[in-house]
């Protein structure tokens, strides 16, 4: 259960009806669902992908044949792109989206992140990952079956199925909020200059 519903339940059980109203008004109604999608990426999918990447990395030295060098090059870029995507999302994108959803808690005039721009940057990274996954899968399919090709195929399968699906859910959710949710409609006007002394990453 998310923090929002837990807080609401505690407040209700304690008979703090005023607190219930405050908690509800402070949070965007979509924020709860957003955290779930973030968790499905950040806590479930990305660690699984990381594990599969490690397995491929360990088996790569045993890859032989004409595509050895090409696989190593594409995989290195794939890994770098994935780590970068996960890093940016974890440290900048996810907190930014949640911040925008919960912007009512912040003082009026506080500068807000540009979620559309962040989404665009991460979409490009995700697209690059898909291109690499397709390429790696073709290499793996063209090679003799081995532990390495199996690990590579599993990684590509995860990217081309789960990763695609969950990112689509994430993008659809953001797109839908951008069209309909007040949070997104309002935050653009809140971009007033105030220098962060030192951003907590």
């Amino acid at each position, binding site marked *: 259960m998310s923090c929002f519903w837990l807080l609401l339940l505690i407040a209700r059980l304690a008979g703090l009806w005023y607190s219930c109203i405050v908690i509800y008004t402070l949070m965007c109604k979509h924020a709860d669902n957003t955290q779930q999608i973030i968790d499905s990426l950040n806590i479930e999918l990305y660690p699984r992908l990381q594990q599969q990447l490690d397995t491929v990395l360990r088996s790569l030295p045993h890859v032989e044949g004409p*595509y050895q060098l*090409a696989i190593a090059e594409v995989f290195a870029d794939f890994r*770098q792109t994935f*780590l*970068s995507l996960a*890093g*940016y999302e974890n*440290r*900048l*994108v996810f907190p*930014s989206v949640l911040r925008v959803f919960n912007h009512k808690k912040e003082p009026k005039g506080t*500068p*807000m*992140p*540009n979620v559309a*721009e*962040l989404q665009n*940057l991460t979409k*490009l990274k995700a697209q*690059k990952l898909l291109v690499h996954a397709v*390429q790696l899968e*073709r*290499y793996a399919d*063209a090679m003799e079956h081995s532990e390495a090709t199996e690990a590579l195929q599993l990684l590509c399968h995860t990217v081309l199925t789960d990763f695609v699906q969950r990112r689509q859910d994430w993008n659809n959710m953001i797109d839908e909020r951008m069209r309909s949710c007040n949070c997104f409609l309002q935050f653009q006007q809140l*971009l007033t*200059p*105030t*220098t*962060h*002394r*030192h*951003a907590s*990453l």
Partner: protein
Amino acid sequence: MRLDGVHVGCEQCKVRMQSVFNALNTEELQELTQHKSCAQYKKGQVIFNEQGLPLGLFCVNSGKIKLSKTGFDGKEQILRLSKAGDVLGYRALLANERYHCSAVAVEDSMICVIDKGYFLDSTKQNNKLLFEMVRKMSSDLKTAEDHIVSLSQKNVRERMAEALLFIKATYGFAEDGQTLNVVLSREEIADFVGTSTETAIRLLSEFNHDKIIELVGKKIKLVNLDKLIKTANLND
């Protein structure tokens, strides 16, 4: 030997001194002439193909040759360009392997091919020739290593530009519409880019020099956003 209808021995070759055969004496050059044949290649003509078996060592007398390799996706990757005086196909010949790349004339060229057996025997017997071959291989290796380094540096430049775009999207600009609305340490920026602090400092300095950004104390001003986006190469 016949070059453009003129009989020319290796001892008269104009580019000999730039080739691996520069140390051979007249007698050795005359012997070399007996074990080679020369041919004119038109622009676009293939000299040897990827996966082909090497039958001899190619020596460029005139013109330019492109050495390229085809990726799995059919995309051509140029490895290097060879000019007059260069030798081609020595790697496959010495390693006793098939060619790992193709050679194509990028302009009308004159190329001699030296018999495989004769060349291998000569390198075993002639220390000067062997030394010149090692020197040539070392030089090509350096070129390849420089290429790898420049590729990885290009990559880290792209990543730095991308990091600045992420930071801009997250924190926005200050009042002037150019200065990033956040103060990040060089270590934090390096962490985003996935590089060392030293490299991050050098890259920021390069961007500053290239007038993409302006470093104002600890703050970063994005003075040329278009150039920054181009540097990030996001659509690659």
